[in-house]
Structure formats: structure tokens, C-alpha cells
């Protein structure tokens, strides 16, 4: 952040004659003491990408009649706590009580179009846009009030929805200042923002208010929405991706299941609308058992998956080439290793849900989609409707960790609602469909080669990565939503190639003079899309496993070896922090500690992770004892929200690393439920400790995806240190440890 204080804190404090930490609202309320205005500074850096499409203050915040603030964000709450983070920055800039700031999340025509809620980008885009809009609003309110109160801006105090003259004691509420008009001023640099040293909300562990609603069973999720006369529906999915409907027993359905309102058949898209939800469950089961479909195209043999990927891959593209790798490898000892990662599911706890209602002109849709504006484009194409006639409201869903099935459920609901107008139709997906039709995080192969110079520093490095697309998120290509592929005139999705980061973090952040990264794209047998951290998970698992291999070859401590290849002080700091966190740890026989480092996308947050495991040599079981992380995301907005994201991400990653893979045979996907796709359970979850390095003068970066990639490598390295077995192929199962 390029922030130049226009007025130093010392000067500011001298002016006021006494020292105050931040802004004391209590004094303001009691009337005993004048509130102290926090010092401000000029922000002259870059405005967030989200502001490109929404430049004015009123696109981001509105001042309500009662003087409270409504913030508009194009992002969606999915358990990451973004609502609270946004509330914090707005309240901070406007010196408001938190409860007087409400946050309105994504709704078409209401909130800015911020694309997708993903890529750990909500803090740097949405929250920062709100910060600059709120700071601009504050300036505008002061300027307008100075005119109305006939005084200078320096005579004014702005706090909690009022502006007051110090001299005359006259005050105006925000509503009185604006007289029903919103602030249409464009946000331009420099923005006069609050000095971070005066923050009272930002950087603090402000509790989320939605947890209080959750424990009371209030309507929090899309699954909880109820509209008068709402009907229920389920969709009968084909037995395989390419199956087509031949016939269906509709007559039998009506005699077997009560409450049938309508069966909708459009090509191979089959939906059934019922009065009650459980009737829809039974109707879907009946139709699945009483329908005939064509046999789908077979899958490759599971055991041949990685060979198959190499067989079908396109010729590689060189995505990075520095120095002369081949020349250095010539005659040198080259170390090589191949790492593989299977298809992994999003596996949300709450199967997808979508609600839609068509009133004859406008189609209303409620969805837990991560991108309601881009999804609207897909729906408009699929339904041959004008996007302006589709109104989408985002409603929180269960954590989805990337592009999962929310958009598909919304598309299902939209198709069914058009067939049964003027009624809300709620589509609920089954657990099995959620497990089968989820666009998985793609299987990947990462092959690494490196050589060491005479000082045991890496002098040459090559990455070859095989990846399917990591983004099939909705856009105007209707084939991005599942139902569109099964209509009478089906929309096939256009291949997206590399889009979405298969080679993300495939180039080491370490200082290596000669480096090549080649990416091989394949269009694989399964539906895939963005899963938390995209290609970084496989690439960092590979790279950080390999760094331990190289450190051993170099005869160096793995953390010292990494530090020897880093120049960035922030990178070194997180490694040293995790080193300190684990310095008192002793390991018994069969136990090991492993480490890993990453700078996410090589441009964002820094993290070092440690894992301590115990490996049972008799059965190969690796038990997690404890995990640690040291994290630097730059400026911290919500300390507890950040900690929660890191803790959860490490545990989820441990689950992927030790347990998870999509299983299949040549005819079908076989991991259809939680028994066949197990995830980490309470008995397997270790203690987790997170240390945050807060750097308020650095840009705030997102954290959601950050802990996931290095955790896998830290666990693999810990297992190696515990039992001498190095596992290259995820998940690291007891069987692989025994047979290694």
C-alpha cells in the first residue's frame, strides 16, 4: 500500500491536546466528552478491480432514512465471514457502531457485479472497494455538512451517523445532510482513509453475528427459504454423463406417489414437481427406477487414470522459461520425482438447492451461486430470455469451497418454474447427485526435476504439469450449467483449456536461476471445475515434498534449505515463525514433523505449515497429532475470521491428503455417499495452532485457499520423517505407506 500520511499522528494529537486511542464512542454517547476524530491518511495505490465496473459511492453504500448504512457487495456469504469483514471496514471509515452497518450481499440489479466469490479475492476486491467508497462518502458528508452548517470542515466531527460542529454544537444526521439523495461521487485517488493505527474494528477479532442466528435455527440458508404456496421438486439425473432418456413411466408415478403436480421432460432433462418435499424424494426414486436411458460412454480404468491423462493430453505449452535449464542439466546429477493427485470432490455438507418463480414476465431466482451475474448470463442463454428479465438473489448456502453445484440447482429450478408459472418451485439435490454431478477438482500429475550446484543450491528446475480445466464456472456459455446439456437442443460446454490455474504455483517462489514450467492440458473423462486453491494444491504438494528431498540430498535442514533459496523477508518470516512454534517439540519413535512453505499465486499471502504425525508401522496408519501455521496476509481485517479460515483449511486439506479420492469403474462413479467418499472425522482431527503476522501497511489479501496446498506437503514430509516412506501419490493411505 502506498499510503502517505498527510497529517502525522503526533501533530494530530497535539492539536487536540490529549491522547486517545482511536475514536471513543462512549464519550460521544454520554455527551460528557467530545469524540476524537481519528487521524487520516491518503491512499494513493491502486483501486480494486471491482471498482472498474462500479465507480461511484452509491454503488457500494447507501445511507438509509435513519442514518444507518447499507453496504452493497457483489460477494456471497459461504461461511467465510465476508459479511462481517465488509461491515468492519465500512463502520471503521464512517466511525459508526457496527450494528448500524448492514451488508446487502449479491443481488442482480442491486449490488455491483463482482463476478465470482472465489480465488480468495473478496477481501482485496469487495472489502477494499467498500473501504474506499466509505471513506469517500465520509469526505462528501463533511463537505456537504460544512455548507449546511456554515462552517469549515475542520470544525466538524463525524460519528455514528451525525456530523456536528465543535464550535456551535449544531449537528445534522446523515439523512438531514443528504435529504434523500445518495452520494453519487466517483471514488478517485487519493482517498482520504483512516490511519490504521486508529482502527477500532479492523484487525480485531470481531465476532460474526450470523452464528447467533445459526444456533437459534433462524432461516440462514437457501434451504430455509419458504414462500407461500411453494412447491418442491427434484431432478432425475441420468445414470451417466452421456446417457440419454429413452422412456419413463409417468403413469406409474401418479399411482405410486402422491402429491405429483407435474413431471417436466425436456429432452433428457427430467424434473418432477410435488406438493411436499418428501413426495419429490419418492417421485425421483420411482422415476430413476422406472426409466430407461442409453448407456453412457465408458470411463478409463481407474488404475490407468494417470497413463490415460498423459495419453489424451495436448502438446505442452511453456508457461515459464528463465535461464537455460537444459544447459545446466547437461552432465549434472538430476533429481526427479512424479507426484499425482486424484479427482477430489467439493463435498459440501448441504446438497445444492435452488428456488425460482416466473410471474409471466420476470424470472426470479434464489441461489447460493458464487457468481449470480455470470450465472444470469448462462440462464439467459439456456432459456432464450433477456438477462434483464432474470432477477437473481444470492442466499447463503453450506460451504462449497469453489464452483460446485449451486448454479446447476438454480438452473433446474428456473427450467421447472417456467413450466409452472406464478409458483415458487424449490429444487433440492440429493446427496448422491451432489457426490456424482459435482464438478470435481481435476486429477493432476506434477513431474519435477532439479539439480544442485556445488554450494548445494538449486541451480536448475523443471516442472511438467498435467491438468484439466479448473474453471467451468457459469458464463454466457449455457453448457456451464448442467441442465442445459440435457435439453432437446443441448448446449455442450466449450472447453476452457487452462483457464483457472492448473499451473498455479507450479513455478517455485524460490530463487532459482534456471527454471522451466510446461503445462499439458487434457480434456478428461469427468466434469471438473474450481476447487479451493485450484492447481496449487497438487503443485505445492509436489514442490514442497520435493524441496525436502533436495534438502536431504544437500544435507541441510529442510527449513534452512528453503530460507537459503528465498530473498523475500516476509517469506522468511513465516518460515522462522513456524520454526519457533515447533522448536519445543520432541518426537517419539514413529513420529515425525514435516514442513512446507508457499506464497499463494506467488503474489499473495505467505504461509508456512508444520504437521506432526505418528505412523503405525504395523498397519501403515498415519495419525495427525498437531498442525501449525504461520500466516502473513498483509493487513488483517478480522483476526478471528482469518484464524478460522486457516484452521479449517488445514483440516480440510488434511482430509484431502489422507483420505479423499473420487472412485470409479469403467461404467460409473462409485463414490456416491459419505461411506464411499470418507472425509476426516473427529477422532482423526488434530489440534491446530495458527500464528498471524499482521502487516497493516501491506495490502490485505484473502486467506481462504491459502492453508490448503502446503498442508498436504507438510503431512507427506512428516510421514517421511516418521517412517522413512515417501508417498508421491495422493491420498496417502495406510496401504500406500505399508507398500512404499
Amino acid at each position: 500500500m502506498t499510503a502517505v500520511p498527510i497529517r502525522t499522528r503526533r501533530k494530530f494529537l497535539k492539536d487536540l491536546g490529549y491522547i486517545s486511542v482511536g475514536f471513543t464512542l462512549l464519550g460521544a454517547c454520554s455527551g460528557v466528552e467530545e469524540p476524537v476524530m481519528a487521524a487520516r491518511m491518503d491512499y494513493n495505490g491502486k483501486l480494486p478491480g471491482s471498482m472498474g465496473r462500479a465507480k461511484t459511492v452509491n454503488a457500494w453504500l447507501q445511507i438509509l432514512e435513519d442514518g444507518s448504512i447499507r453496504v452493497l457487495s457483489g460477494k456471497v456469504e459461504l461461511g467465510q465471514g465476508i459479511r462481517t469483514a465488509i461491515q468492519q471496514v465500512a463502520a471503521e471509515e464512517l466511525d459508526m457502531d457496527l450494528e448500524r452497518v448492514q451488508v446487502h450481499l449479491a443481488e442482480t440489479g442491486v449490488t455491483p457485479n463482482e463476478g465470482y466469490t472465489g480465488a480468495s479475492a473478496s477481501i482485496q476486491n469487495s472489502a477494499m472497494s467498500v473501504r474506499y467508497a466509505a471513506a469517500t462518502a465520509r469526505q462528501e458528508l463533511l463537505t456537504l455538512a460544512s455548507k449546511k452548517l456554515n462552517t469549515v470542515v475542520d470544525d466538524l466531527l463525524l460519528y455514528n451517523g451525525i456530523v456536528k460542529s465543535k464550535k456551535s454544537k449544531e449537528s445534522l444526521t446523515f439523512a438531514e445532510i443528504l435529504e434523500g439523495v445518495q452520494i453519487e461521487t466517483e471514488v478517485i485517488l487519493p482517498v482520504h482513509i483512516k490511519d490504521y493505527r486508529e482502527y477500532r474494528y479492523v484487525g480485531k477479532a470481531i465476532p460474526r453475528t450470523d452464528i447467533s442466528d445459526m444456533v437459534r435455527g433462524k432461516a440462514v440458508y437457501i434451504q430455509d427459504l419458504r414462500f407461500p404456496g411453494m412447491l418442491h421438486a427434484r431432478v432425475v439425473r441420468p445414470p451417466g454423463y452421456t446417457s440419454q432418456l429413452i422412456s419413463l413411466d409417468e403413469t406409474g408415478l401418479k399411482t405410486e406417489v402422491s402429491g405429483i403436480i407435474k413431471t417436466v421432460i425436456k429432452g433428457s432433462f427430467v424434473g418432477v414437481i410435488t406438493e411436499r418435499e418428501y413426495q419429490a424424494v419418492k417421485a425421483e426414486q420411482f422415476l430413476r427406477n422406472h426409466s430407461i436411458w442409453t448407456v453412457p460412454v465408458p470411463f478409463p480404468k481407474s488404475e490407468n487414470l494417470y497413463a490415460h491423462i498423459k495419453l489424451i493430453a495436448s502438446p505442452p505449452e511453456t508457461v515459464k522459461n528463465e535461464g537455460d535449464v537444459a544447459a545446466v542439466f547437461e552432465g549434472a546429477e538430476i533429481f526427479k520425482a512424479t507426484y499425482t493427485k486424484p479427482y477430489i470432490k467439493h463435498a459440501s455438507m448441504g446438497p445444492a438447492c435452488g428456488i425460482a418463480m416466473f410471474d409471466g414476465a420476470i424470472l426470479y431466482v434464489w441461489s447460493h451461486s458464487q457468481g449470480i451475474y455470470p450465472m444470469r448470463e448462462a440462464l439467459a442463454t439456456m432459456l432464450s430470455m433477456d438477462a434483464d428479465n432474470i432477477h437473481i438473489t444470492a442466499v447463503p448456502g453450506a460451504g462449497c469451497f469453489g464452483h460446485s453445484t449451486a448454479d446447476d440447482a438454480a438452473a433446474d429450478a428456473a427450467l421447472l418454474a417456467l413450466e409452472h408459472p406464478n409458483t415458487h418451485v424449490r429444487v433440492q439435490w440429493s446427496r448422491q447427485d451432489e457426490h456424482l454431478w459435482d464438478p470435481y477438482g481435476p486429477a493432476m500429475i506434477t513431474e519435477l526435476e532439479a539439480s544442485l550446484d556445488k554450494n548445494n543450491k538449486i541451480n536448475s528446475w523443471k516442472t511438467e504439469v498435467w491438468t484439466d480445466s479448473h474453471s467451468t464456472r457459469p458464463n454466457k456459455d449455457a453448457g456451464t450449467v448442467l441442465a442445459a446439456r440435457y435439453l432437446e437442443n443441448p448446449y455442450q460446454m466449450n472447453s476452457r483449456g487452462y483457464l483457472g490455474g492448473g499451473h498455479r504455483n507450479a513455478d517455485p517462489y524460490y530463487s532459482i536461476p534456471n527454471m522451466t514450467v510446461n503445462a499439458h492440458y487434457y480434456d478428461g473423462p469427468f466434469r471438473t471445475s474450481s476447487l479451493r486453491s485450484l492447481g496449487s494444491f497438487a503443485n505445492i504438494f509436489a514442490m514442497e515434498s520435493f524441496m525436502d528431498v533436495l534438502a536431504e540430498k544437500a544435507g541441510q535442514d529442510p527449513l534452512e534449505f528453503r530460507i537459503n533459496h528465498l530473498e523475500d523477508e516476509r517469506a522468511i518470516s513465516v518460515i522462522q515463525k513456524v520454526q519457533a512454534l515447533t522448536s519445543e517439540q520432541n518426537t517419539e519413535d514413529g513420529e515425525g514433523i514435516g514442513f512446507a512453505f508457499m506464497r499463494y499465486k506467488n503474489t499473495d499471502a505467505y504461509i508456512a505449515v508444520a504437521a506432526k504425525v505418528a505412523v503405525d508401522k504395523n498397519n501403515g496408519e498415519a495419525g495427525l497429532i498437531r498442525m501449525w501455521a504461520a500466516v502473513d496476509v498483509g493487513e488483517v481485517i478480522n483476526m478471528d475470521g482469518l484464524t478460522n479460515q486457516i484452521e479449517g483449511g488445514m483440516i480440510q486439506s488434511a482430509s484431502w491428503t489422507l483420505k479423499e479420492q473420487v472412485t470409479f469403474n469403467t461404467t460409473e462413479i462409485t463414490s456416491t455417499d459419505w461411506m464411499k467418499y470418507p472425509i476426516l472425522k473427529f477422532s482423526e482431527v488434530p489440534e491446530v495452532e495458527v500464528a498471524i503476522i499482521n502487516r497493516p501497511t501491506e495490502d490485505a489479501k484473502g486467506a481462504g485457499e491459502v492453508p490448503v496446498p502446503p498442508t498436504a506437503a507438510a503431512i507427506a514430509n512428516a510421514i517421511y520423517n516418521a517412517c522413512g516412506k515417501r508417498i508421491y501419490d495422493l491420498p496417502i493411505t495406510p496401504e500406500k505407506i505399508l507398500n512404499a
Partner: protein
Amino acid sequence: MPTYHLNVNGSQKKVETEADTPMLYVLRDYLELNGPKFGCGIAQCGSCNILINGRATNSCILPISSIGDAEITTLEGLTTNKGKLNAVQQAFVDEQAAQCGYCLNGMVMTAVGLLSTNPNPNETEIKTALQANLCRCGTHTRIIQAIKTAVKSL
């Protein structure tokens, strides 16, 4: 369609539905309660847990015809009439023991069931009780901490 008289959260409810309708759908769809969540419908995840005579039970595979006059308690029923939270609910708020919170119902109901028979469980007993409850966000450590906090407050 048969009619059932249920004892839900301390009051009598009349529901007319098919005998095989699982309690999850009765509670959510007929009685408009949000606490129990649909997570799998096959008793594998615990999101739908309710208390049947104080015992945490999967409601998604429990037909209404099997209930009789059993006392049913949902998440909503843990709160007093004046809105005071149960100790476990309060501890989940205090420890911020949620990310998406979709599994929270099952965690709270299971914990309440556990504490009613074992008011002072150790960590292993807490983990054992929660073994059939899945969480995808990785909030496990906070959930365990919340239950420990609730134990202390009892």
C-alpha cells in the same frame, strides 16, 4: 392420509402425512422448523439430528409413524421462551464455532444429548460422541472447544 399428534419442543402438533415420511421432512416442511438440516438423507452425516426423549437421533430416516408420544426436541427447542440460549448454543456463539454452520445443528444436538448423560465428558468422549457428525469446513477444533466451554458453564 393418516394424522399424527406429535410432542415437539414442548407443544402438541398435528400433522397429516404419509406414514413413511421421515421426521426431517415433517419438521422442516410441515412444521417450518429450520434447525434440522438435510445433509444426506441416509443417516451418514448428522446434520439432521434431533433429540428423541433426550437422545440425539438422525431424523432423516426416522418415519413419523415410529414416533408415538416421544418427546421431540429440535435446535429451536433448546432456547427458553424468553430467548435465552442453552449452554451449548451459547458456547458455539462464544467460541465462534462455525464457518458455514450447516452442520452446526447436528453438532449442538449431539453435544446436548451427550451432556445429558455425561455432564463432564473428556475430549475423547466428546470426539467419540461426535464421530458420526461430519463437518466439511474443518471447524472441528472449535466445536470441541465450544463443548468444553459449555461443560464448564454447566
